Every structure is written in C-alpha cells, then in structure tokens.
C-alpha cells in the first residue's frame, strides 16, 4: 500500500473539558503505522490548537497537515475539497470523534462524496494479504479483502499500541494548509436537520454548589416520615411498642 492517511480530531476530556488526543484516532494511527511507514496525518481545525495536536506527533509521526478552518465551513466540505485532488489510497478515521455531540458521520459523508467504499469497525489490517479484520459483536470477526481505494473506520476495540514520546512531539512539523471548500450538498439528505458548529464547550456534569457534607447533613435533617414520639411516659411507651410488635406479628404469644 502506497499512501495511507489518517484523519485526526481533538477530543475533549470528559471531566475537565480540555482538548486532548482522541484515543479513537490514536487507534487509527496504530493501524496505519502497521500498514505503511509513511502516514499522512490530516486535521481540520484551528491553528491555536497546534500544541494539543503535537500529541499525535509524539506517537511517532514526523509531520501532520493542519487545514485551517474558516468560520462557518463544514469539516466535510473542507476535507472533500482537500482530498479530491490529492487523495491517499486508504483513508483511516477513528470510529467517532470524542468531543461533544459527535455523530461519527464524517467518514460516511466523505465516502459518499469521494465515491469510495467504506469499511467500518476495522480492528487490524494485514498489508501482505490486503485484508482487514472487522469487528462484529459477540466475539465474531470478519476478514474482508480491501479494495484499492477505501475509507476505513477503526473500531474502538482496536488496541492502543503506540507510545508517546515527548521529544517526537516537540520535534514534529505541522504544515499549515489554507482551506478550500467544495459544496457537497448532493450528499446531504433532506431529512437531516443541520445545525452550525458550536464552538467552546459546555460542562458534561452538573456542577452542584453544595458540598458532599452539606448534602449529607441536609438528608439527615429531612423529616423521616413523621413518626410517633413518646416522651416521659414509660408505661405508655411500653404498651405502644408491644402493640406495634404485635401488629407486625413479632411477639411469640401474639400469633
């Protein structure tokens, strides 16, 4: 296989919301590394995120291509116009981006727009026989022979085998590419509801103002169902308790 490209995205940390390396894309990179020595890494995004993108270079890649995103553009439109002229034979993607509200549709839209077959949930690729192992549920696997040009999405069950080396992350090169758009309106379905990209992040977890101790004491202070309280009356309390126990059939002579 001559040319392999991996589309990489930036994930958001589920707790802190910070941008980080996407494990799904790191799996795709691990598969790509097995397929070819020279792998192209392609990212559509902002140059401000270059530092985070360097994490991918730290996995053992000398350079990546960063296509600058213009406001309002769709990632797919930018990618299609970029890949149309200079398309690698095999394009790998992670199963789904791990930001927020990600659909995992990008590879499908690309496959449709570039008229390429798509193989989803690939676990590994054997370059010698040109076959891919596909993930199926319940421990089943399927061997597929790969077409010459294809888009593969890598299963989230594929192993993370690449090691991060900080020196490689520092020394790698980021080539910035100006973006162009190509309308792919023919791909969009009429039934889709399309929303513009929402930058920034929202917290995934609801932040409670009260601390754990406050919640604990509040729970304890809540009324427990308005039970009966007997004070300063020993005889009556004994009567009442025996009555209750008899009601519940907990006295040996009451049953």
């Amino acid at each position, binding site marked *: 296989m001559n040319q392999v490209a991996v589309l990489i995205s930036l994930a958001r940390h589920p707790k802190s919301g910070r941008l980080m390396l996407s494990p799904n894309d790191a799996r795709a990179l691990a598969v790509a590394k097995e397929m070819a020595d020279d792998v192209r890494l392609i990212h559509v995004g902002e140059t401000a995120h270059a530092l985070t993108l360097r994490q991918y270079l730290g996995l053992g890649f000398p350079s990546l291509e960063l296509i600058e995103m213009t406001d309002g553009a769709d990632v797919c439109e930018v990618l299609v116009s970029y890949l149309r002229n200079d398309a690698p034979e095999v394009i790998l993607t992670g199963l789904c981006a791990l930001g927020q509200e990600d659909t995992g549709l990008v590879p499908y839209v690309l496959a449709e727009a570039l008229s390429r077959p798509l193989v989803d949930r690939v676990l590994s690729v054997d370059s010698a026989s040109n076959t891919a192992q596909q993930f199926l549920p319940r421990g089943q696997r399927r061997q597929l022979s790969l077409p010459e040009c294809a888009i593969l999405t890598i299963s989230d069950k594929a192993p993370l085998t690449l090691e991060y080396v900080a020196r490689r992350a520092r020394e790698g090169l980021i080539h910035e590419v100006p973006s162009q758009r190509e309308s792919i309106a023919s791909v969009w379905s009429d039934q889709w509801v399309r929303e513009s990209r929402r930058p920034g992040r929202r917290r995934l977890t609801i932040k409670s103002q009260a601390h754990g101790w406050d919640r604990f004491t509040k729970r304890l202070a809540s009324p*427990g169902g308005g039970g009966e*309280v007997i004070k300063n009356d020993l005889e009556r*309390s004994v009567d*009442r308790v025996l009555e*209750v126990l008899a009601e519940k059939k907990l006295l040996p002579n009451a049953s």
Partner: protein
Amino acid sequence: MIAVNLDETCDLVKRADLAVIADAETWMQSVIDRMEVLA
C-alpha cells in the same frame, strides 16, 4: 423502626416510625417485665 434514645434531637428519633425518649436499659427492662407478665 423503633428507636429508643435519651436524646430527642437524635436523627434516628426523627426518622423512626415510633420513638421512645427514655433510657434504653431501664426501658428495655420494663418491656421484659411486662412480657413476662403477659406470658
């Protein structure tokens, strides 16, 4: 749930179905006495 405690502000007293404010030891002895009489 039945709670026996001297402290009537105790959380168990608030939550119990029936709460008795008394010294548990003497109260329990009187319960035993009563049950012996019944038996």
